[in-house]
């Protein structure tokens, strides 16, 4: 072996060792370029020089040395390419790191609005009854004496009128603001005379001259009316139980007791086992339950079998017997929407519903 061959071999080994030492130290693109020039530069690169010197090596050994040197050159090329990629990756990472956001800053929310809590309750009531086959009927808010009182078996000077202090409009005609949605029953029966079958609820605003924590001069009720052949008190009970259980849950008992409304006979009030104290009348700390006034029961709605006088008043207005009390019967019920919302959300002042204070309205997700 010639001395030249030995020297090329030694230089190759030394170059490999030198590359192994320098490669891990590449820190930026300048260092990368310097290394590339050092080993692979066309003019001054160490490997290029060595490859040129092979021309002087004997034919027999040149082939082997050439393979060896080219292998080293290829390896260095690959290693430098990898280093370049790594360098780019690091530069990108550094750049991204500088683009850091503080994720704890407040987010950008889409606008949030909401329906009024009474709208939410009213629609829920409507949905329950619609599912039971009811129509939803709107009646006028301005009524006359006939629709609000007379047709509902409350002739002039009837003591029951005292229970409902009425707002009257100025001027002739004796117009008034309806004191209950019961007046809508009469409108519906007059408008829908064939066949004498009715299954409606009438939600809407009503007005009474009264204002304190449990009375607002304007509030909302839902009236229900079912008329047909063979309708009886058991149907009234079943309907109200189904409705209250759907609204509040099956866990609460429903109590029915006799009562009095001029337009129903028999008249029935329905109470719900108090959802706050569970019917015991006492809270966990043994204090009296304020929601049910320690009775364990919440007065929820008034109801009853339609008074024959109501059917007769409608027939009189129609001029013929359509709702014959001898052949059709019916039941009616009415409840305050605010009452349901107050019980459900634990609200203690009815007037809050109509003050439009956002601090109140925003408490109810809807």
């Amino acid at each position: 072996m010639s001395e030249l061959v030995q020297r090329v071999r030694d230089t190759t080994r030394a170059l490999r060792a030198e590359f192994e030492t320098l490669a891990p130290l590449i820190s930026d693109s300048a260092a990368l370029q310097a290394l590339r020039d050092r080993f692979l530069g066309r003019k001054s690169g160490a490997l290029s020089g060595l490859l040129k010197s092979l021309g002087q090596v004997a034919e027999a050994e040149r082939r082997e040395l050439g393979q060896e040197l080219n292998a080293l050159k290829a390896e260095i090329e690959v290693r430098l390419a990898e280093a370049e990629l790594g360098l780019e990756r690091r530069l990108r990472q550094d750049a991204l790191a500088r683009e850091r956001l503080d994720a704890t800053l407040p987010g950008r929310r889409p606008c949030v609005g909401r329906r009024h809590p009474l709208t939410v309750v009213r629609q829920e009531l409507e949905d329950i009854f619609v599912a039971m086959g009811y129509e939803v009927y709107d009646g006028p808010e301005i009524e006359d004496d006939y629709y609000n009182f007379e047709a509902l078996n409350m002739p002039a000077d009837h003591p029951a009128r005292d229970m409902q202090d009425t707002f009257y409009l100025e001027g002739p005609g004796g117009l008034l603001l309806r004191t209950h949605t019961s007046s809508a029953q009469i409108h519906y029966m007059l408008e829908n005379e064939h066949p004498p079958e009715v299954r409606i609820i009438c939600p809407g605003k009503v007005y009474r001259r009264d204002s304190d924590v449990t009375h607002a001069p304007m509030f909302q009720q839902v009236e229900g009316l079912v008329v047909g052949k063979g309708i009886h008190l058991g149907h009234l009970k079943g309907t109200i139980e189904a409705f209250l259980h759907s609204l509040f849950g099956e866990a609460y008992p429903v109590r029915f007791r006799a009562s009095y409304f001029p337009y129903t006979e028999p008249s029935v009030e329905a109470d719900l086992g108090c959802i706050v104290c569970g019917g015991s009348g006492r809270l966990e700390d043994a204090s009296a339950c304020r929601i049910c006034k320690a009775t364990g029961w919440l007065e929820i709605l008034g109801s009853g079998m339609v008074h024959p006088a109501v059917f007769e008043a409608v027939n009189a207005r129609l001029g013929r017997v359509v709702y014959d009390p001898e052949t059709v019967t019916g039941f009616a019920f009415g409840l305050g929407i605010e009452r349901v919302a107050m019980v459900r959300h634990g609200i203690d002042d009815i007037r809050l519903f109509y003050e439009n204070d956002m601090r109140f309205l925003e408490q109810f997700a809807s």
Partner: protein
Amino acid sequence: MRLPLSWLREFVPVEVEPRRLADDLTAAGLAVDGIETAGGETVLELDITTNRVDCMSVYGVAREVAALYGAALRPPDTAASATGAPAAESLHVKVEAPDLCGRFCARLLDVKIGPSPAWLQGRLELVGIRSINNVVDLTNYVMIELGQPSHAFDLSRVPGGALVVRWSREGERLTTLDGNERALPARVGVIAGRGGEPPLALAGIMGGASSEISQTTRVVAFEAAWWEPLAVRRAARALGMRTEASHRFERGTDVAAGPLALDRLAHLAAKIGAGSVRPGLVERKGAEQPGRSVRLRPARVSALLGVELPRSQQVKTLEALGFLVSGSNTEATARVPSWRLDVAGEADLAEEVGRHYGLQKIPSALPPSGRVGGLRRSQHRERRIREILAGVGLSEVIGSAFVSGSEVAAAPGLRLANPLTSEQDTLRTSLVMPGLARALGTNQRLGRRDLALFELGRVFLPGSERPLEERRLGMLLSGQWPPRHWSAPSRPVDLFDIKGLVELLFERLGERLPQWGGEAPPPGFLHPGRAARLVSDGRELGYAGVIHPDVRDRLELKDEAVVLEIDIERLLESPPGIARFHALDRYPAVERDLSILCDETTPAAETLACVRQAAGDRLRSVSLVDRYTGKQLPPGKLSLTLRLLFQDRERTLTSDEVQAVVDGVIRELRHAGLEIRGE
């Protein structure tokens, strides 16, 4: 009404726990609101419904209790031995107004005035009545016990020893027992002295001072009458009076109770040593009160209650309550007891049977259903509007229907005859003014500046026969909307926020967008330069605009607010538009921008319409991308940059074709006197 149990037990042997008794009475319709125990006495607080005046007495409740438990009802002890001359020799009674008084009964007692015994005073105290003297206390005691009010006259102070029942004349004066001198209107029932003068007492309401019992009273005329309920009701209302007596009479007392009450008085007077009764009842009857009978078909009662109850059971309940039943199994008659003025028909009998059977025991069922329920179109749409608006960030409010008359221009027929306050004396004619504006003020005072509100409700408008009720939608935006984020500069709301909202709403409802303009000027409470009428299909819908600065000052509103109010009657009733599919475009669209120099006073809609018209059917859309008003433009001018999008359904458009269309648009615009910038 307060009911001591010891008093109740004088008439019915009831030994159940007070709690149980209260629950049973409540279920049967005599609502017990509370149970009170004090000094060895248990008192029930009863809330008697207005129809059951017969139960506004101890004996009346005892009758219910006896029927409930199947116990015997013990009648009140009325035994008394009469002494002296017959009463009729010293007392004369005349009923001049039979339409006022159905029955007038009186008895004379020789009395010795003094305090009542402790037990009697104690009982009155338990029911909330102050003891006066033995004679007055007896009348109160008997009223609470039997439900029949009575009145005691000092016979020596009754002119001529005569009690004359008549209607009042307008302007007559009478000093009542409460010390008030009253000027009577006409047609108030009075009890007067001989010859009808002077008025001594208000019939069924309150006695008079001139014949009041005093320490020197020796002979008392006790009166117990049946007064026409309506007469007492009207008189009490006219005089603004409400007494224990009037409360009972105006609901209808028992026409048969007068003699019983007087006998009980005589018995008790002897018992407590207050006096002794003279022989004879002095009585005058007015119009005869015929006994009433009601048809009873037991099968129908069962059918109405939804539970099969045998005739015998129904009759047992009714007879325990004082009804007399006769007739067959299928068709019977129930004679109504004189104290039950509330019972007039078969349904009333069903109530008696049902409540004593127990409503709780009646099996529940759902009515047979052959009907499909559902919401009406307008109800669906109302819901949809609420969902859309809540979905884009508005909060629903519900405003009062009452506003101050000073806030509503001319509103014939919308004023209340009996408002709660002068601030609430008129029905609202608008949702926005003052309703939503006030809601804004309320919240601003509470420190809330960013608000987006809507209301969907009725307003009232003057109508020919009666006010019209119109359904409307109102909106109000103020401050920032959407709420400001820390990353963006603040931008107060303006007209275009509310315009965008209403357009979104109409689009989602499948309705054509309303036009902005309209003939009539916007309402005066809006900024004259920043408001517009909304028109749809040639019909005025409403208005939108910024609240006038003067109005803002008057209502003390801190920030500018944009409002909108539209009539939604048509919107609610119109059938929902169903979208028609059209094939997707397969060829690319070409975009061109045009900057147009216009007069500041030319509505943008006119320029856009001109472009649309000229561009023809290959124009897919045109949108405003910039509006520039600046120093680089001649005075009175502004620049609109429009982005036009061209597309053909059949092929790709060449740039020459597009240019030809754009050139055409430019020609038309120039023709209309508009300049194109950068051309």
